[in-house]
């Protein structure tokens, strides 16, 4: 029987605004399956986003949803989590939103290891604004603001997250959609800052300028270039070149921020009452 997404959608908000060939719909469905599998109620979940194509996602889902200013989703989400630490807080963000204008918030949320799940829709481009390059646009790729090929070095979200202190880092792709919901569940269940990067296709503003003849080509590119971590680790160096691992890339346990904060609160309050 086909999976019924409708209980999690604001069905009256469809059709969505995403372009034909965009993979965000595929990812939206995976996130819904993941949220259902996580077993956390809709009332106990807040989904926060910034600005951009991915950031329009919260409008389509039936949760407590907050669509904020460009780059600021994680900072808004931090306020929510700090006053309601027992609730489930997700951030949906794009590559530009998370790593350019919101880069500071991103690295500091990782550093704190606050229990928020950050799902980054990485399509290597500013889609909604019309195809300008982002911090993840591959060097050499074309964008409206890099008409002669991108000369900027690009961010590796996996390394950026780990280096900043995130305790869960995973990567999936829109092509490998069947595996995505499990990554969503793992990311939500992880206590601490989880980063889930999802590689996406933007045929309209990225593919068109970068020799992808149609949306399918972009999906096939993902199929060819992204391999599960276990397989990736077995590749000889010459075959690993240009390929990227998927799955849970990094996971450690470290004290979670809001828990540490409220333990401190408990400690000082008991001391105030004469305890030690």
């Amino acid at each position: 029987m086909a999976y019924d997404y409708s209980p999690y959608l604001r069905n009256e908000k469809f059709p969505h605004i995403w372009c034909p060939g965009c993979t965000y719909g595929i990812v939206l469905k995976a996130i819904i399956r993941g949220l259902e599998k996580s077993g956390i109620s809709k009332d106990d979940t807040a989904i926060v986003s910034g600005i951009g194509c991915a950031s329009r996602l919260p409008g389509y889902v039936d949760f407590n949803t907050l669509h904020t200013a460009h780059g600021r989703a994680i900072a808004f989400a931090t306020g929510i989590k700090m006053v309601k630490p027992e609730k489930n807080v997700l951030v949906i963000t794009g590559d530009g939103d998370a790593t350019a204008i919101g880069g500071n918030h991103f690295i500091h949320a990782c550093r704190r290891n606050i229990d928020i799940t950050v799902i980054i829709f990485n399509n290597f481009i500013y889609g909604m604004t019309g195809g300008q390059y982002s911090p993840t646009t591959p060097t050499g790729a074309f964008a409206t603001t890099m008409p002669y090929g991108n000369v900027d070095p690009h961010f590796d979200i996996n390394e950026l997250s780990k280096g900043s202190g995130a305790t869960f880092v995973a990567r999936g792709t829109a092509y490998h959609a069947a595996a995505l919901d499990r990554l969503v569940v793992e990311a939500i269940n992880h206590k601490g800052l989880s980063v889930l990067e999802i590689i996406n296709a933007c045929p309209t503003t990225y593919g068109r300028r970068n020799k992808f003849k149609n949306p399918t080509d972009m999906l096939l590119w993902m199929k060819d270039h992204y391999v599960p971590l276990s397989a990736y680790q077995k590749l000889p160096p010459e075959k690993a070149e240009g390929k990227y691992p998927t799955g849970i890339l990094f996971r450690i346990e470290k004290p979670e921020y809001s828990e540490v904060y409220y333990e401190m609160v408990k400690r000082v309050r008991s001391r105030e009452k004469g305890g030690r």
Partner: protein
Amino acid sequence: MAKTIRLLQGNEACSEGALYAGCTFFAGYPITPSTEVAEVLAVKLPLIGGAFMQMEDEIAAMAAIIGASLAGSKSLTATSGPGFSLKQENIGFAAIAEVPCVIVNVMRGGPSTGVPTGPGQSDIMQCRWGTHGDHPIITLTPASVQEIFTETVRAFNLSEKYRNPVIIAFDEIVGHMREKIEIPEPGELEIIDRTKPNVAPEEYFPYDSSKGDIPPMANFFEGYRYHVTGLNHDMTGFPVNACELIHVEEERLMRKIDANRDDIIKYEEFMLDDAEVAIFAYGACGRSAKEAVETARENGMKIGLFRPLTIWPFPDREIEALAGRVKSIVVPELSLGQIILEVERTSKGKTRVEGIFRVDGDPINPGQILDMVKEVI
């Protein structure tokens, strides 16, 4: 908190006022001369089970207090000059999304880094027009440590009542001054909380103004599951592109403050009844002006003071009436002329308006004001 007499700094009184009003969340970024507001709350919020966060920047701090407010907490941030500039985009977000929150701006000189340890009043137009777009705002301007306490409580009340960001703007002099203050007993000052919906979740629309310009507000995680956005939206909270609706909703936002101006606007009139010359001054300038009035009266000059405690919305009707009955209005301010523009605008040519401006980091003293008064009387 029993009624207590204390010797407090203005910034400390601000923190005490916030706690009295029920604030349980503070997010900020250190900046002179506002820092003590954060430092006191870093000590006190944990003691009441609240949360204090020093964020990575001013923008994050403003964002975090909006998030915390949506999740049900009364929340505060405090900043000065450049930090206030950084917060502007998200202040606009709080205005359009109608999220209650309080922003303290302990004003210093500017532009840019300006005079970090000197007083200023040159953010007063930024309080009103700092962010883009048309939006409602409330700004309070206390002039003493006691007033900072009570006005901070009032700021939270107005914010909750009108679902709007409220700014408390006071200059460095008042922020760092130490004075005797009486902290009222709990219950002595009225505390207002946001109006919650009394309808079932499926019947709730977060921006439904059919029963009034200020719709009831559900907090996140209370079963209402609504959508909040910085885009122009309809009563459901979802974005709209219908020109007509955007215009109507923008007007409602402005109206919810403008139509309630009598409830929001507060001011002190000092010896104005028979005054021939009025001084319009707030904050530290208001204190100097009061002394100038007293000295002038001792010398037989009919001088009075209009001291606004709410500067946005501007007390336009009151100033027009005042302008109709005095020979001139003198406006001392710690800028090169900002709020004088509003006094000129609202006095509608009915009187002469003269400014005393100073931006060197020193206060305008009573003598300077008296000199000008003697010129215009």
